[in-house]
């Protein structure tokens, strides 16, 4: 009963979020200087007459009032029709599907690495509060938290690709190889530097939060009592610390999908990595409205899903929420 209510509430929230997002994005695009007909015609501009342009506009319903245009578009979206991308000349859904798969590999690697290393760094810093190692980790995290992703990407490119020549300058696959001949190791090879960029920036958040949470736990009454009962050192942190800091860390890590996505937009641009982030930039710069709107909606679902997973894990694992709900 309760969990059904929970799922229903979350679904409702998601739907209302998407509706609001559709309205806002539509208004923004409608008022942007992009002329969809112009964007569609592109290079063929000289060969298309004024009358033909009007015909295109009429065919698309651009002469109708904005509210009616919105409902036409929203109606198609509900049916799953996101339209065709103008720059890739493919259905938007296909473009996003392909791009998303590439981005997912990049973001997944970065997410796992930053989660694990950030958590470990946070624990090490928290256990050694005020010591050199703690100050070093804190300094590192604060510096990175203030570092733009694209700048770090550029630095890594300059050092490891240009200077040392260890990694490719960019792209997701080698140049001049047919796509069916690209091996997995070549794909991984191209993935390392962008993933590293995202991971290095990503650890700051989780490490600093974990550190603070561990300090709170160590200063808590229950740790004091555990010490009074003869527990000490690493055993104490292991028994009481990990238990109490891993939940917030996991929740935080799932809630960081939005930063991850934002970071991948920048990193993919720097590394010319053919993922969703790069497609976003292209769609924006070249006025590909259907693709841009499609990406906005899909990324919203992506971020929302992350938060939702965090919520669910928290409520399934934390006894105060799980058993609290069933006993009340």
């Amino acid at each position, binding site marked *: 009963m309760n969990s059904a209510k929970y799922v229903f509430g979350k679904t409702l929230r998601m739907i209302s979020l998407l509706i609001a997002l559709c309205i806002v994005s539509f208004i923004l695009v409608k008022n942007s200087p992009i002329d969809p007909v112009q964007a569609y015609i592109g290079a063929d501009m000289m060969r298309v007459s004024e009358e033909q342009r009007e015909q295109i506009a009429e065919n698309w319903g651009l002469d109708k009032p904005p509210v009616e245009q919105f409902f036409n578009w929203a109606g198609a979206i509900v049916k799953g029709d996101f339209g065709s991308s103008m720059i890739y000349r493919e259905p938007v859904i296909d473009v996003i599907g392909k791009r998303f798969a590439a981005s997912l590999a990049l973001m997944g690697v970065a997410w796992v690495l930053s989660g694990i290393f950030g958590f470990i760094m946070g624990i090490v810093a928290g256990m050694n509060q005020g010591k050199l190692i703690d100050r070093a980790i804190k300094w590192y995290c604060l510096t990175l938290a203030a570092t733009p992703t694209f700048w770090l990407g550029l630095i890594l490119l300059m050092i490891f690709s240009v200077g040392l020549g260890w990694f490719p300058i960019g792209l997701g696959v080698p140049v001049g190889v047919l796509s069916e001949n690209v091996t997995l190791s070549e794909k991984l090879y191209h993935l390392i530097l962008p993933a590293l960029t995202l991971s290095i920036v990503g650890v700051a958040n989780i490490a600093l939060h974990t550190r603070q949470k561990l300090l709170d736990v160590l200063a808590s009454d229950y740790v004091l009592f555990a010490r*009074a009962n003869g*527990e000490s050192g690493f055993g104490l942190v292991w028994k009481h610390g990990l238990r109490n800091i891993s939940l917030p860390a996991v929740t935080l890590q799932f809630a960081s999908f939005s930063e991850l996505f934002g970071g991948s937009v920048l990193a993919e641009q720097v590394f010319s990595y053919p993922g969703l982030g790069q497609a976003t930039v292209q769609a924006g710069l070249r006025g590909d409205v259907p693709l841009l709107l499609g990406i906005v909606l899909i990324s919203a679902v992506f971020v929302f899903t992350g938060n939702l997973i965090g919520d669910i894990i928290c409520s399934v694992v934390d006894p105060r929420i799980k058993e*609290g709900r069933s006993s009340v």
Partner: protein
Amino acid sequence: MNSYNNIKNTQNNQPGYLDKGLSQPLSAPKDELLLVEDLSVAFVQYQKGLKQRNLEVICDLDVSVKSGEIVAVVGSSGSGKSLLAHAILGILPSNAKVSGTISYNGEALTVERQKLLRGNQISLIPQSVNYLDPLMRVGQQVQNTIKTKDAKAVQEQLFKRYHLSEAAGVLYPFQLSGGMARRVLVATAVSGGARLIIADEPTPGLHPEVVAETLSHLKELASQGCGVMMITHDIEAAMKIADRIAVFYAGTTLELAPIEDFKDRGEALRHPYTKALWMALPENDFKPIPGFQPTPADLPSGCLFEPRCQLRTAECSADRPEMRDLRGGKVRCIHAT
């Protein structure tokens, strides 16, 4: 409670503090299980810039507990009572400086001995359920404190002894009722076969029945030969079970009196503060003591109670009075007779 946590950390001054001058055997009589003499606890605090100062929260405290005896340490909130418990157990924060002597069973209680004894011979009954790990089942937490192999069996026995059902073991702290929480905390404290039990504020804001039950647990432990130090602000709860009462004020003990002296209009009591405290109870005069307890940063130079005392003379503000024996108790007042 953790009010001292906001004081900045400095280097660890704690280890070895009790070792100084302990080569000589202490003057402790054999029957004293715990003897605390001239205990002071101070915290290093940073003021403006890099100026440091020592904030003395406990100074020159004396108290003792015999086997089979309940000694109540009674004092108002914020007088540093909990720190006394933490000092005995050796779980003060690292920026605390401790001086004076604590001896257990006739031998000095050094940092090493504290580590060895806490959780088994010396144990703490904490104030509230907040002292249990919120994410661990309480049965497991009791088992954690048991060092022997048959931890689970011992825990089940303990639960039976304290009328906790078997199902209570799989509950989390937030699911316990006030009374159950008290019983779990007591069970945790006695799990290691403790001989000295320090109960820190064991009856805060509890239902009268639960208070009575908690006090009966302490009484039972004492009758089995444990020494019990009960730290409380509840003088009435202390009166019900204690054999002696130590009156705690502004970080020190002003008087140690047998329970029989707390009667009538307090004529048998020694210190003016104790008398005033006794007369302030609702069933006596219900008359408050004017003034406030001084804060650790702002202690009077002489007797700590001097600013509020009705018997004060010029000599009172000159020096801190020594603890002296008087009529079967102890008192820290030059005018007490």
